[in-house]
């Protein structure tokens, strides 16, 4: 979590305060940085793209990067899995990021250094960059040291551009650097600058150098031309140093980096690329989707073979001798492969790239106060994130071992807070590590049955025969309509109803009307979040006004009605219509309505209260339209009769005051049709014109 002081009002979604005290939606709990996925997907669904981006960025300074390469644990945790398929969260993030490019550029600003303390950060990967971001936000002087010519660590030097276009990475880096972070690229600690000088010059030092070195194999024939290591190979490609490979490339390894290496070799023009790994297809550590994409690119994978020797003839690589793997893990589940030496084979290759894991390079720590343990790891206190040396901190893969970019972001946030507290003479020790959050339970079967099946919108890729010729990004982003449709699939877990127990008089109304059986009333009402689908039907029905919605509470809208409706022009020739429009779908695009139709977007019309309709008249509106989705396109069930009843009651009430019941109508549209809103609103406007404009002194 970002230090509290970095959170501005602007980045806080409505209801954020309440939300923090409740169990997290599973998507949010699964994210190492606890990105409020539900909130930003909801904002996308309402067409509020830059606000969605702010929600993402409030906890994740590498939003663009994650929109491309995150392994999205949020999707694996999505409760929609119980219904059909998870939300395409990462792809929606990409959409929000793409829509916010100009916005974020306009928001970049220097944060003046207000604290008389300076911090050196070694390494500019996800963890170092995050820490730099947070510490700069807090007003510290921050200098980032990077041995490569550009910032980004592995993101810039190892992740291939076809997965992470460099301009996306640059957006994130520019945001961070703009805050006033001093950048020292091409600067290797221990070579260009000495650690002790850094320690002298700064009040704290952060080591966030990641796992920057490839492990090699200790097998015969490995030394010599034709055998490469993954990271130097990927770095050569990243910095256009054109590594030499043959036509028949064999990649040893079964992880995500191995897949990157193989697909990169394919893009460099190798006609024949294959992989060999110890694991079976099921055991392979690479993500399934990455394996599938590699297979599409005609990369063959030989499973359950272990490397024995590189065979060479006249010094040239001929291929790899391999031995059959019997098992990869021992009875305790530890990595401990066993082989059947009677079964051997030979895989032909002219180039072999070893991708069996990475390790740290601590040569720069020689003779420094930072102690290394017997197994070559930095000695550190995971509670304080401090190394054995006072004021020298560690974060990211250096200490956590191989992990994801977003996990490194979380580590960066924590270490920034640790450094901040340390420099204030306090300690982070004892503060909860934010990793474990109570989350909302799985969808009960009774609720699953009530949710419409709606398959996930496929993410399109450039065809393999085209994409393999280039390092161009291979994935095609959603267009606006696709993004709105996909975002509309979110069930709003955690954004639903909450009860103010001081106001609840246990009247049972909510329990009686909820279509999903969420409220249970005993001495007060408790709305069970695992059942709640965040429609909002209960809030306006509550006679004590005790229920509010965590996200997009209708009171937020009620308070803005006056400004939305604006001042009445007594000489207007068109009626002013307040139109409550359900926003949660593609129809948002059709909100381009004539000026006399004043748009009041609501999450669902079930959130519109009788008081809201009356208030619109109080503000001078000539007519009020409540525009709901028709039975076929409404994402909720069992709400329309209640909405109709409320409109009926509001008609009765304004009839009593003498305004005329005809000035309110309930309209319904197919929410997937973009222009439907305009048609029904225009028709309503004509009917109100016939009734006449109100002449009321306000």
């Amino acid at each position, binding site marked *: 979590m970002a230090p509290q002081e970095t959170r501005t009002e602007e980045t806080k979604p409505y209801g954020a305060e309440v939300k923090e005290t409740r169990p997290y939606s599973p998507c949010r709990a699964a994210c190492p940085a606890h990105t409020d996925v539900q909130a930003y997907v909801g904002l996308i669904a309402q067409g509020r793209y830059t606000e969605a981006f702010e929600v993402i960025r409030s906890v994740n300074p590498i939003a663009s990067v994650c929109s491309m390469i995150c392994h999205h644990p949020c999707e694996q945790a999505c409760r929609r899995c119980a219904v059909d398929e998870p939300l395409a969260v990462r792809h929606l993030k990409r959409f929000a990021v793409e829509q916010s490019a100009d916005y974020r550029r306009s928001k970049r600003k220097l944060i003046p250094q207000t604290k008389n303390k300076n911090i050196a950060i070694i390494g500019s990967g996800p963890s170092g960059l995050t820490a730099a971001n947070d510490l700069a936000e807090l007003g510290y002087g921050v200098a980032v040291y990077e041995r490569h010519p550009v910032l980004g660590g592995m993101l810039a030097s190892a992740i291939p551009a076809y997965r992470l276009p460099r301009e996306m990475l640059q957006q994130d880096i520019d945001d961070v650097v703009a805050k006033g972070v001093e950048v020292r690229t091409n600067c290797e600690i221990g070579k260009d600058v000495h650690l002790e000088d850094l320690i002298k010059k700064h009040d704290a030092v952060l080591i966030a150098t990641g796992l920057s070195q490839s492990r090699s194999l200790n097998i015969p024939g490995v030394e010599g031309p034709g055998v490469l290591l993954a990271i130097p190979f990927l770095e050569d490609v990243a910095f256009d140093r054109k590594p030499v490979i043959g036509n028949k490339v064999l990649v040893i390894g079964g992880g995500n980096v191995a897949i990157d290496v193989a697909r990169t070799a394919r893009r460099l023009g190798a006609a024949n690329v294959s992989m060999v790994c110890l694991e079976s297809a099921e055991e392979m550590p690479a993500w399934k989707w990455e394996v599938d994409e590699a297979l599409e690119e005609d990369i063959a994978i030989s499973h359950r073979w272990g490397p024995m020797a590189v065979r060479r003839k006249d010094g040239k690589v001929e291929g790899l001798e391999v031995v059959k793997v019997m098992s990869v893990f021992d009875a305790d589940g530890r990595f401990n492969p066993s082989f059947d030496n009677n079964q051997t084979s030979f895989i032909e290759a002219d180039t072999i790239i070893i991708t069996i894991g990475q390790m740290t390079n601590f040569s720069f720590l020689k003779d420094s106060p930072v102690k290394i343990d017997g197994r070559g790891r930095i000695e550190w206190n995971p509670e304080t994130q401090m190394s054995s040396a006072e004021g020298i901190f560690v974060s990211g893969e250096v200490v956590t071992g191989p992990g994801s970019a977003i996990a490194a972001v979380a580590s960066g946030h924590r270490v920034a807070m640790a450094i901040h507290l340390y420099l204030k003479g306090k300690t982070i020790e004892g503060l909860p590590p934010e990793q474990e959050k109570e989350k909302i339970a799985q969808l009960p079967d009774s609720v699953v049955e009530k949710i419409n099946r709606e398959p996930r919108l496929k993410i399109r890729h450039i065809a393999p025969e085209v994409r393999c010729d280039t390092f161009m990004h291979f994935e095609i982003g959603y267009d606006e309509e696709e993004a709105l449709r996909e975002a509309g699939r979110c069930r709003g877990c955690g954004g639903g109803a909450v009860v103010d127990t001081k106001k609840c*008089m246990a009247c049972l109304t909510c329990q009686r009307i909820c279509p999903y059986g969420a409220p249970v009333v005993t001495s007060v009402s408790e709305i069970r979040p695992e059942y709640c689908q965040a429609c909002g039907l209960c809030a306006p029905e509550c006679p*004590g*006004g005790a229920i509010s919605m965590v996200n997009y509470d209708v009171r937020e809208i009620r308070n803005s009605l006056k400004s939305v409706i604006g001042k009445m022009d007594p000489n207007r020739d068109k009626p002013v219509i307040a139109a409550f429009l359900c926003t949660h779908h593609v129809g948002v695009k059709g909100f381009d309505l004539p000026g006399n139709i004043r748009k009041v977007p609501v999450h669902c019309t079930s959130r519109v209260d009788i008081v809201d309709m*009356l208030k619109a008249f109080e503000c001078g509106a000539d007519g009020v339209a409540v525009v709901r989705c028709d039975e076929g396109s409404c994402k909720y069930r069992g709400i329309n009769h209640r909405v109709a009843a409320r409109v009926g009651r509001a008609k009765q009430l304004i009839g009593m*005051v003498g305004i005329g019941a005809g000035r309110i109508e309930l309209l319904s549209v197919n929410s997937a049709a973009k222009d439907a809103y305009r048609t029904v609103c225009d028709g309503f406007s004509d009917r109100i014109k016939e009734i006449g404009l109100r002449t009321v002194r306000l």
Partner: protein
Amino acid sequence: MIVGSQKPIEEIWEMVKDFKKILVFGCNTCVAICHAGGEKEAETIASMIRMRAAEEGRDILVDHMGVMRHCEPEYFDPVMDEVKKYDLVLSTACGVGVNFLSDRTGNIPVYPGINTSFYGAVPEPGIFEELCAGCGDCILHMTGGICPIARCSKTLMNGPCGGTNKGKCEISPDVDCAWYLIVERMKKLGTLEKLSEVLPPRNWSTSRDGGPRRISLEHIRAYEEQEEKKSETSGGKR
């Protein structure tokens, strides 16, 4: 619980139109449950008055507020300073609340925003049925749990009368005959023979006919009075 229903806006308007600052004051217990006078309904009524005022071109400030109950002082005491800033309180509590509050607002009038109807139950959402008349001398054990005082149109103690018609009352085909229900229920309970006894005329002095009623619980009062005395002798006043 006490069931109420909203007054027509016309009647409310006639009551309030000459005031300048009006507080519509909701009660969040019984009358909230029957959607007549809780905070939500107070807000609706306030909005209606404002609209009506605008239609008539009158300049009236109308706000709303709600507390848990109007019939116990501890609930509204904390907001009394706020309440006293208005020149009229339109209470949407039941008649009890209106009475109780108006005893405590000095020169600020408290008017009723709703009609207090009866003691009732909520068999299903939106339906409220009178089942008790608060007569002060309960005989439900003799009538199969069905009250003839509240539910028989004639309040007969020995029924049914000649107006019973296929289980319905002669006043309306929509009204059940309470004595028909009593007979059927007692058949089911196997206690029908009890009805052969004629119930004697009632002493109505326990009901409204005996004048305003007040209950003082000695065991609680004894303690309270002792406490009051103690605080007086120690120089303080509760």
